[in-house]
């Protein structure tokens, strides 16, 4: 059952899953973090309220987020093929994952920034800090713990979505689970992949929680 070939396949599955999850989280943040900061800054109570820009961002965010991931995955196949040259495999899966993650991350970032006490922002303003200085030196520093918690949750969600992409040949552990568990009824292999997913999730969640706790100076 678990011959060398299967073990090799599972190892590759773990590698592909980590690759998809981490790379899409990273790229997702490159897009989602500025997007989220933009939403916060232009919101009604932000540093530079702008209803027009906020509504545009808000609508884009909501549209993408309201499409179920599996549908998004299929809808984006032509785009994915355009970007990476093919529509299957783990690298190709990163494209829809990022597009799905970016607006989600933007919302998570926006809500983290909203938690920062308005008093410290006013204090920074009263010292003559510019909006950029407030964003970089105060907002992001003070929201750090919450941002790390948000990133942990996001990584967990993307781990789940990367597995979901297995149904359309996305690669990784989800792919293995679907192929062996669903099409071939080899429950034991599916079982192993599920255990591995649980373990990976635990590692992500626990390290996120640990880093967040380390960074928190408000109470301890």
């Amino acid at each position, binding site marked *: 059952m678990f011959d060398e070939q299967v073990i090799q396949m599972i190892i590759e599955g773990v590698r592909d899953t980590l690759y998809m999850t981490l790379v899409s989280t990273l790229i997702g943040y490159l897009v989602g973090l500025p997007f989220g900061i933009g939403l916060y800054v232009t919101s009604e109570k932000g540093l530079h309220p702008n209803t027009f820009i906020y509504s545009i961002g808000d609508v884009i965010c909501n549209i993408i987020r309201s499409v179920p991931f599996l549908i998004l995955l299929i809808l984006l196949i032509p785009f994915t093929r355009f970007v990476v040259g093919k529509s299957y495999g783990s690298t190709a899966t990163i494209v829809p994952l990022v597009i799905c993650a970016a607006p989600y991350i933007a919302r998570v970032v926006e809500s983290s920034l909203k938690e920062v006490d308005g008093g*410290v922002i*006013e*204090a920074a303003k*009263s*010292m003559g800090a510019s909006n950029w200085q407030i964003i970089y*030196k105060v907002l992001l*520093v*003070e929201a750090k713990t919450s941002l790390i918690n948000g990133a942990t949750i996001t990584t967990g969600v993307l781990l789940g979505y990367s597995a979901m992409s297995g149904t359309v040949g996305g690669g990784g552990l989800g792919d293995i689970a679907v192929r062996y568990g669903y099409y071939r009824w080899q429950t034991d292999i599916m079982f192993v992949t599920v255990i591995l997913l649980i373990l990976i999730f635990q590692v992500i969640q626990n390290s996120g929680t640990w880093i967040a706790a380390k960074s928190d*100076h408000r109470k301890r």
Partner: protein
Amino acid sequence: MSDVLRIENLEKRYEDSIVLDDINITVKKGEVVVIVGPSGCGKSTLLRCLNGLEKIQEGSVVLEDQIVNPVSKNQEKVREKIGMVFQTYDLFPHMTILQNVMLAPLKVKKRNKQDVQTEALELLDRVGLLSKKDKYPRQLSGGQKQRVAIVRALIMHPEVLLLDEITAALDPEMVREVLDVVLSLAKEGRTMVIVTHEMQFAKAVADRVIFLDGGKIIEEGSSKEIFEHPKTDRLKTFLKSFTYDEQ
């Protein structure tokens, strides 16, 4: 003495309600102006208008020759010169005491780090908190936090210091340590505009007292004139609310 801060015909409205109505105040260099009045009279709002945290609808606030309010772009340059200390301290919770104090001079004024650090340590020493420099705000008492907040404002070398009910959130036994710092600043000739509920303190520190009620200046004068010889009934009633003599 030269005028530092000029407030002319200031009017502040929220939609239909007038919060501040035709306020005229001139603060001279080295002067300590204390604003008193019942809660909701607009005194904190007035203070916030003085550094542009609140927009105004009419009139102007001018610091030396720079317009503070109506708020313009590049507001930051003027704000550097107006220090403010808040009721709720508003220290940055994720930064140590020293980082809290050094942030603005380093990042906003782009001063040399060594100089800033030397000055920060001197100022912390002056308010008796040198030993707390590496602590985080949560490890300090309210009174200690407020003294740090004062230092954080002072290190920017402000032309004017605005103090917004800085003892209102403190336990009574901590009020003194904060007010002592403010008194020593007054003695060395700092220009300050103070909003407070501590009448004894107002009496001790003020060169001039302004009584604000319903968004208008009702009376203005030396602390002796205001506290010992109030002219208007409203001020008399207000002052009476602080005494506990039998009727």
